[in-house]
């Protein structure tokens, strides 16, 4: 049983890798690469959020706050203090981890709607600070972010690179980098889920009281997964800033927090591949709806509502269920 379980996980990762590396065969223009890169980075943040929401059963309506903090920490360190990207990203993640740990302890004692309220408040406070500390963050106008660099080697969408003897454009290079980041994010998340920590988290989701009765330190595990998911968001925020070259406080906004949690719920809470599908759908949907101009908002709201009403478990679990049912039916027909 357990072997089949991890086998299934591995299949998901392999499937994802194939999709990520096959995609460049079907797209070529810089705009599409940009969209794909952005989607991969946001999807990786959503994979982290899913650990908190899908596995530990907690709610966060303020996760963009951590995404924004990571993005701004890297932006400020590299742009104003001339730091290299990697140390800025790592220190930013440590900074966000400490903040998440400090606010997480008292917040995670709350349940249900009170937890939604508290996480929403934390996200809002971070966004307000980023908006108002104009001398450091540039305020609502945002600030530029230098290219991502590793030991003097720079990754820029305007660059030209060669990989295994092939010439590749900067757009493609960024996309491949973001794709690898996503795969690593998924691999780490899956390892965490299969570890004793992951089992403890799922027990918290199942029944917090039962978990604490059998000796799981629920407060500790909830804080831990809160910190981990915040670090995911922080790292992806930092990379997102380097990729865009410019950030505004909208990366920490309530709207973005809602978008992140919607990706989790729409794709299918608790399914790593599912939430990535959720991220892809919600990143692409506005692009598809842009043709409808004024109707964009109405259609977006309508699609969101209808999907959640008719597929409350999310896209992937619902599809998997349908498939399983059909298979069972045809098997029954054979007998």
């Amino acid at each position, binding site marked *: 049983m357990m072997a089949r379980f991890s086998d299934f996980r591995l299949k998901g990762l392999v499937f994802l890798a194939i999709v990520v590396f096959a995609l460049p065969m079907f797209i070529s223009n810089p705009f599409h690469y940009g969209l794909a890169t952005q989607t991969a980075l946001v999807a990786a943040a959503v994979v982290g959020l899913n650990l908190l*929401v899908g596995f530990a059963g907690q*709610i966060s*309506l303020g996760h963009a706050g951590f995404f924004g903090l990571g993005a701004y920490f890297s932006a400020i360190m590299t742009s104003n203090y001339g730091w290299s990207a990697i140390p800025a990203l790592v220190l930013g993640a440590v900074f966000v981890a400490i903040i998440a740990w400090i606010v997480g302890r*008292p*917040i995670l*004692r*709350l*349940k*249900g*709607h*009170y937890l*939604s*309220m*508290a996480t*929403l*408040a*934390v996200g*809002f*406070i971070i966004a*307000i*600070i980023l*908006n*108002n500390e104009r001398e450091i963050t540039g305020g609502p106008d945002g600030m530029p972010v230098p290219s991502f660099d590793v030991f003097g080697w720079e990754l820029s969408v305007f660059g030209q690179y060669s990989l295994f003897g092939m010439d590749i454009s900067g757009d493609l290079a960024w996309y491949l980098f973001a794709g690898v980041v996503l795969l690593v994010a998924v691999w780490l998340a899956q390892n965490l889920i299969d570890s004793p920590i992951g089992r403890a988290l799922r027990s918290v989701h199942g*029944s917090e*009281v*039962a978990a604490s009765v059998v000796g799981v330190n629920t407060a500790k595990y909830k804080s831990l997964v809160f910190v981990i998911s915040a670090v995911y968001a922080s790292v992806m925020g930092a990379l997102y800033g380097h990729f865009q070259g410019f950030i505004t406080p909208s990366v920490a906004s*309530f709207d973005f927090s*809602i978008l992140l*949690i*919607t990706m989790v*719920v*729409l794709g299918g*809470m608790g399914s790593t591949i599912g939430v990535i599908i959720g991220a892809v759908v919600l990143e692409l949907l506005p692009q598809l709806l842009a043709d409808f101009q*004024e*109707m*964009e*908002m*109405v*259609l*977006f*709201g*309508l*699609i*969101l*509502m209808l999907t*959640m*009403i*008719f597929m*409350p478990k999310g896209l992937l679990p619902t599809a998997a269920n349908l498939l399983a049912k059909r298979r069972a039916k045809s098997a029954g027909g054979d007998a």
Partner: protein
Amino acid sequence: MFSEFLQYLFTGITIGATYALIALGFTLIYNASHVINFAQGEFLMIGGMATVSLTAMGVPMLLAIVLAVVLAGVLGIALQRLAIAPAKNADVVTLIIITIGASIFIRGLAQLVWGKEYHVMPNFSSDEPIEIFGAVLNTQSLWVLGVGAVLVAVLVYFFTRTLTGKAILATSMNKDAARLVGIRTQVVLMLAFMVSALLGSIAGIVVAPITFTSYDIGIILGLKGFVAAAIGGLGSGLGAVVGGLALGVVEAMAAGYLSSDYKDAVAFSMILLVLFFMPRGLFGAKVVERV
């Protein structure tokens, strides 16, 4: 010095009364269905925007207000019937996303019909402000406070003296038991959403001359109402009123004495502080979890 304080207090109580009405709307729906309705702010927007556009078309003010409130009520019923009822077994988060989808949808419709501009609504009565101890009080503030007080009184009467009100209370306490004694809980849920929408739209109309109105005004007002409801303790009517007024006053004081840029941050810090020490708000029910 004192006049300054009084000025902030007037501002705070006025906006606080609005928050209280929104929070009461949250409370009603929460009690009846345990749903936090993120589309609550859209009822305010509909109230204000429909009144403005109807008067612009030549409809007399009073009739425009009645029509706007009726429109919001119908919307409330539609929201419950079409979006909430079909998803009755969904997770808390899923329900949140559904109401957020609904709010985006309503906002999108409003933007289609009324455009993206800000609209101004005239004061209900004189534009001449009243001076009290050196502080000025807008006459519209009196309207907000008066209407708010009347609505609260009507709600108290409704829930304590009428059979329908008691049916809603009974449903919120125990849905199955309520159904057993013959209360049609589906109708009750519909009623709760309708009353909540009526409350919201009236609040939106009386406050519109002060705040202006536009298609996207519902987001932040709705969130503030949620904050007020959580400060007071979800499900408590008294808590909603106290939470709303407290939030309004604290916000106005923070804007006046500290920094207007950070007034919202003060509001959100306040809710965190309250929840750290009172995880169920000021007047929230002390629920013992049954395992």
